[in-house]
């Protein structure tokens, strides 16, 4: 299929999914206990006050009309106003999102750059002591809750060894965050740990599968050495399923950020989401949900596009 046509179609699909997400978020907004009015006016509001508020805000109009209104607001970047922080949700997210992206993207890069070689190495040394040791560690890391792992890291590296500070960089801008790289180490490592565990397993499985493929035998029969086979053929073939997994890993990364930001007092989206949940600040919560959903859709879109670049068969419509 023509690449341009493919991109257009795939992006159109993504837009449709995002539209469905907005319907769900809108629905959730209106399923709130007492509706948005109760949330904004507080528990003490009289029914008269609520009726008046609803009329002023257009909340007594039919739902589809309200949805269109909501959608128009969204397109103008208006996600509503926080109940507790008295600030536009969009502005809050605009401040916090870059910092969360720094944390999650760094975690993902470091996590993957450890996980991929580790998984390959394990596959080559399958059922040897090294494989068993890493497998055990992976399962421990994967099954340990992120907050517990974070606490252990904090305890060891800030209290016992005193190598790193226990707080993440506190600056408001990305520049300020990067100005204090030492303080970034523990949050990033905590975020990357489960990723290393999960993706080294995927990579190990994919590599093992590919090592038993016929084409490996063909390469070997042509006199290629194990190293060359591994790096020229098996690596690329094993990477494609891992890339596909990565697209669906975006929400997991955000979930991790929620805990890590709370643990290291890092004022990103996760912390925003957490405190909004504590104070029933629904506009903020739903704004975050919308952003994370969009990120997930974009993540799988990017994964699909990368896969198309790596694997010519996808383009040929064969896989």
């Amino acid at each position, binding site marked *: 299929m023509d690449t341009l046509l493919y991109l257009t179609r795939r992006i159109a699909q993504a837009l449709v999914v995002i539209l469905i997400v907005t319907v769900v978020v809108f629905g959730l907004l209106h399923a709130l206990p007492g509706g948005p009015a109760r949330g904004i006016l507080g528990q003490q509001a009289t029914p008269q006050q609520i009726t008046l508020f609803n009329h002023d805000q257009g909340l007594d109009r039919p739902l589809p009309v309200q949805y269109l209104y909501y959608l128009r607001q969204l397109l103008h970047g208006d996600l509503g106003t926080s109940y507790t922080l008295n600030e536009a949700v969009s502005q809050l997210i605009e401040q916090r999102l870059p910092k969360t992206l720094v944390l999650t993207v760094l975690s993902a890069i470091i996590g993957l750059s450890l996980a991929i070689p580790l998984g390959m190495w394990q596959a080559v040394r399958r059922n040897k002591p090294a494989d068993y040791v890493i497998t055990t560690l992976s399962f421990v890391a994967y099954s340990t809750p992120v907050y517990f792992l974070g606490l252990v890291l904090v305890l060891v590296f800030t209290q016992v060894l005193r190598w790193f500070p226990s707080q993440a960089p506190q600056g408001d801008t990305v520049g300020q965050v990067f100005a204090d790289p030492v303080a970034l180490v523990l949050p990033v490592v905590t975020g990357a740990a489960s990723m290393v565990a999960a993706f080294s397993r995927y990579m190990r499985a994919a590599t093992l599968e590919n090592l038993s493929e016929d084409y490996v035998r*063909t390469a070997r*029969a042509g006199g290629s050495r194990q190293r060359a086979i591994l790096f020229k*053929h098996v690596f690329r073939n094993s990477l494609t399923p891992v890339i596909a997994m990565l697209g669906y890993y975006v929400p997991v990364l955000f979930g991790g950020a929620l805990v890590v930001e709370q643990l290291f007092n890092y004022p990103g989206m996760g912390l925003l989401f957490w405190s909004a949940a504590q104070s029933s600040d629904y506009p903020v919560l739903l704004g975050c949900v919308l952003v994370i959903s969009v990120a997930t859709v974009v993540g799988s879109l990017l994964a699909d596009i990368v896969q198309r670049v790596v694997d010519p068969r996808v383009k040929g419509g064969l896989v």
Partner: protein
Amino acid sequence: MNSILEIENLGVTFSTESGDVPAVRGVSLRVAAGETLALVGESGSGKSTVALAALGLLPGNARASGGVSVGGTDVVGAGEAELARLRGRTASMVFQEPATALDPLTRIGKQIAEVVRNHRDVSRREAAAEAVALLRRVGIPEPERRASAFPFQLSGGQRQRVVIAMAIANSPGLLVADEPTTALDVTVQAEILDLLRALAADSGTGVLLVTHNMGVVADFADRVAVMLEGEIVETGAVEEVLLRPTHEYTRRLLAAVPRLAVTGSGNGSVVREEVEGAPVVELRDVSVRFGRGPGAVRALEEVSLTVRAGETVGLVGESGSGKSTAARVALGLVAPESGGVSLFGADLRKARGRARRALLAGVGVVLQDPVASLDARMSVAECVAEPLRVHRRGMGAAERRERVAEVLELVRLPRELARRGPRELSGGQRQRVSLARALVLEPRLLVADEPTSALDVSVQQTVLEVISELQAELGFACLFVSHDLAVVQQFAGRVVVMRDGRVEEQGPTMSTLLHPETEYTRRLIAAVPIPDPVLQRERRKRRLALGTGAGA
């Protein structure tokens, strides 16, 4: 003459979870330069293990003993580095499955160049040029352009040519070919065998040809070694072994091979009289299209065929000819875009719900893959009983058990197997379970799609016998889809030859296959190798003359 491959008293044992399994015992053989030795046998005989051992390519859980020497190098005791120097240069290999033998993500030119550069100190550019030259040598059209293609962009036959190009890249003294044409259509098989023969003759390469196909042996080999349960039971010149076998097993094996009768006398095949019964299934001008838009595939175009009560119709053709699709239309699994399908006189396209189910209850089906077509989580009895559960809802459990036992007996399977899982059975037994399941509702039509293609010849023979006998006893009609003309000739009263989604020709089997009316059928028949080296040599000459005559 000097031997390029010498195997002395080779033994190979696989260590598995259930203990050590000896796969090859005391095998000794030689391949001289320029000579082709065919290693034949049924599945599990150890022939592929010998082939892999020749290049030191045995899997990790295998232990080899004895001596394997390739061009003077001892392979059994060699380390990986030494083996890597040998493979692709002194000896190389062509594998069975061209679909998976190439790295799907690497361009074919690059894969060939890799083999060149593994053994010779040439620049990338020189290696790429050499890859193009090799592609030209193995008969790939437009090699410059094709070199940058990915494997999925090539047909099966072209992929096998690429694998061969890789194998001959460094002019090896020994070529090991493990079922090199088994996954290919007969006409492509003939081309690949011609290619291998020419390459071997040109460069004096010795060939170890592993195959189960006696026709291929007759066509290609100088000498034959027959393997049974890990041992060589008979060795000799191809004429000796195929025409005057001495070992009892070789005789049995050869007797089980269906032979395509090419002269009027017909060796043993039964010519059945034409049946004038009522049609059980009828396809009228059926067209089927898969997909939409410009990418749509025309699978069938105005196909008409009829199967009458009690008769067997063979549906033959190469892969992609639409024969399986036609069978699926008859089964109601594929809805035609246009045309009519009637089953037992009723219009299948109009039948809905209960009426449709009742119609389809009259059709039994046996598919090619005996492993995939039975649910591994069900016991044999459950597999066979499933149609009863669907179509005879009122039937009690005891009655159902009784019926299952009855059909298992019909297909000559012992009752005790009913409780086992399909995995515990052999391929032939599984296929008979499929047959039992197909017959449990006493169908008026049996649709068999390549029912014996995955089986060894001796097993194929029993399964075909069972079908024939039951047909005589129960009187069902049969639509028999097969790529194997010899089997169809033996089995079907009428034959329909398909090509590119159309019916090429049809008629009584004997007259159609002996005196084909179309050029295509003639070529198809000419491409089938028959297991008689003397006759086959004649046929090959005539086929090549036909090929050039037709300007192919």
